[in-house]
């Protein structure tokens, strides 16, 4: 009986193939066509359409938004506006939050003294964990909350898919998928989230392409650092005199550099490691919708901001301990932290950086947010996260360490192009299940960043020498 059945199944395969070959039409296509015709018939019977005026207005807006002449300037303008609002909006609550948090830390400090905790434990908790946390929260929370809210507004309104459509032909030329524009946008919020969102790209080749290039756009963790650097670049080392508009322009320029790198690297990869034709993109343009305030706030603040912040906090706490320990462990007179920085120094100098900067980026692998506090910690050799200083004070610290405009530019470039944070790398591995591509995601921005920094540093040296 069962043998007979096997026989029948084999016959089915033969028969099916014969029918498919014999058929004049593609059966699958025909079935889809038939079903569509049925759908059309039903819709025709139940739908009546009046002259639609709303639709034509929408179409006219779309013609503008999607045109090449207005589309790109509008995109850059909106991007700039988002950054500008973030910059001017974040300053005050950041300082305010910093004050409150550091007062809280001070209170806990006193409390621990009163409790009579062992000194090393007390110091580790206060200077290692708590100050690191306070810094991360104070520096990150306000810009993130504002940025995510604005971003979600644009998304809800229906602008983001239009960005994807406008950028599609650029991505197409780079032999990548237009949806990469969306994953790139997510990357502005958090590269790890951006990598995960690459799932919306169907072709595996294009998905890998989008994943390994995601870290080229600066995430929120790097944003505050870039913000500070841009302020110092515009306003000089004491951080005064620069206008917000100029700072915004610099930031937008840096971001556009990252976007340009995304295109170039995508194209280069598509020509070498990930050869293949780009697939056509089917993206439905949603209608413009009035954003619902409650939903925007909920999603931007609760879902996005909270999750990214929580992640940063989880990473910052243990990292704070490690850095504190490194700073406390001394060999001879100098701390391990300073020693490591000294070891890296000659190499870093060639890149126009210094050992401390490179070390800060290396120790910042768990999360980009803590790069700046680590750097200040190394410079001040205090073995603890310093309080949130004003931009001017940070500028003074930097110039005391011999920073000049070139250093600022190089650090900005390196901040834009260096290894992605641990969470992003982990996401790349989880999504691609491939060590090779994780390695590529690590090496690509690193090599590019070091390359550019090397060129600018050496170029400047030559220029000054002549």
């Amino acid at each position: 009986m069962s043998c007979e059945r096997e026989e029948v199944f084999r016959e089915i395969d033969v028969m099916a193939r014969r029918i498919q070959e014999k058929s004049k039409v593609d059966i699958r296509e025909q079935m889809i066509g038939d079903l569509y015709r049925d759908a059309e018939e039903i819709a025709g019977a139940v739908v009546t359409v009046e002259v639609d005026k709303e639709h034509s207005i929408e179409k006219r807006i779309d013609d503008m938004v999607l045109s090449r002449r207005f589309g790109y300037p509008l995109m850059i303008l909106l991007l700039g506006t988002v950054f500008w609002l973030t910059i001017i909006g974040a300053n005050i609550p950041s300082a305010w939050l910093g004050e409150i948090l550091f007062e809280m830390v001070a209170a806990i400090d006193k409390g621990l003294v009163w409790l009579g905790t062992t000194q090393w434990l007390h110091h580790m908790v206060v200077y290692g964990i708590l100050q690191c946390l306070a810094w991360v929260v104070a520096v990150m929370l306000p810009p993130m909350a504002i940025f995510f809210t604005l971003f979600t507004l644009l998304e809800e309104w229906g602008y983001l898919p239009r960005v994807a459509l406008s950028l599609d032909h650029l991505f197409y030329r780079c032999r990548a998928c237009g949806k990469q524009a969306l994953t790139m946008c997510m990357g502005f919020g958090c590269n790890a989230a951006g990598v995960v969102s690459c799932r919306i790209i169907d072709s595996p080749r294009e998905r890998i392409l989008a994943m390994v290039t995601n870290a080229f756009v600066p995430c929120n963790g790097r944003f505050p650092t870039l913000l500070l650097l841009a302020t110092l670049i515009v306003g000089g080392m004491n951080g005064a005199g620069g206008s917000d508009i100029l700072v915004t322009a610099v930031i937008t320029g840096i971001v556009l550099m990252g976007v340009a790198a995304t295109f170039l690297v995508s194209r280069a990869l598509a020509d070498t490691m990930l050869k293949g034709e780009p697939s056509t993109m089917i993206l439905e343009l949603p209608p413009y919708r009035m954003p619902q305030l409650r939903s925007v706030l909920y999603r931007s603040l609760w879902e996005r901001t909270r999750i990214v912040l929580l992640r940063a906090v989880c990473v910052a706490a243990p990292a704070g301990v490690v850095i504190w320990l490194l700073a406390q462990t001394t060999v001879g007179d100098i701390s391990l932290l300073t020693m490591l920085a000294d070891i890296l120094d000659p190499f870093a100098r060639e890149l126009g950086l210094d050992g401390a900067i490179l070390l800060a980026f290396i120790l910042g692998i768990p999360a980009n947010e803590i790069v700046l506090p680590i750097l200040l910690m190394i410079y001040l050799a205090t073995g603890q996260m310093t309080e949130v200083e004003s931009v001017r004070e940070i500028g003074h610290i930097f110039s005391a360490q011999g920073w000049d405009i070139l250093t600022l530019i190089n650090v900005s470039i390196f901040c834009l192009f260096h290894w992605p944070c641990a969470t992003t790398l982990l996401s790349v591995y989880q999504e691609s299940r491939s060590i090779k591509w994780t390695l590529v995601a690590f090496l690509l921005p690193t090599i590019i960043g070091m390359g550019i920094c090397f060129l600018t540093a050496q170029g400047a040296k030559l220029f000054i020498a002549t």
Partner: protein
Amino acid sequence: MALMCWLRSIEWWGECVAGEDICRRYLKDAFDITPNEGEFIVALAGNPNVGKSTIFNALTGMDQHTGNWAGKTVVGAVGRFEWIGVRFILVDLPGTYSLGTRRAEEAAARDFICFAKPDAVIVVVDASRLERNLFLVLQVLEITKRVVVCVNLMDEAKENGVMIDLLRLEDILRVSVVGTTAKRQEGIYELRNVLLRTCQTDDIRTPRRSRYSAVIEEAVNDLLPYIKRAVGETVDARWLTMRRLEGDTECLRRVREMLSAQKEGGQCEL
């Protein structure tokens, strides 16, 4: 793990294997759901960006991420809610334009509708784009008759001057149709009631089956006898035939595995 929807119609299946077990195991493995006694399982299907997640939130009172772009729901969300003392588990399937096996999210949606044997499938459609959205509805109707068509975004359609005769649509499709504007909670009450009715009733109408062109019918008639010989009369052989002609070998392979397992020990294993 493909296409076992026809299992519902096979009588021996219920005897030889606890079909419920498989459905439960699938729910547990894929979604980590363990339905309690008397809980109904409801799937939420629909094209991308028709407000599926908003419907999900409106029904469950949860706040799941909703976004104005296609392909947002990558992993199906799961929520529970209660209506007039009856409890439901709602599974938000990824948005798809059709049910095929070529794309991961389409296969996922089809698998769920087939495999988890939901007590009802809500297909959310965009009122302004009914024609394109009906394609998915017709495909779902080929698999299960426990369907509620939820015509969402009625307000937008109205603004655009699109009018839909919902009663007529119900007559044509022969399944329940509800008009909603989920973001303002309009029609959700009715949707809940219709859902309850669809889940509870044993007497459910046979929905519209789309007619195919002569070429297809001919091809189906050519292959149908063979399929029937292999799987017997009780299975939805026609549906299986169409999938095979479409080039989908996976679902037939599965049937074959199960039948041979049944022959050997009277115990089927997946």
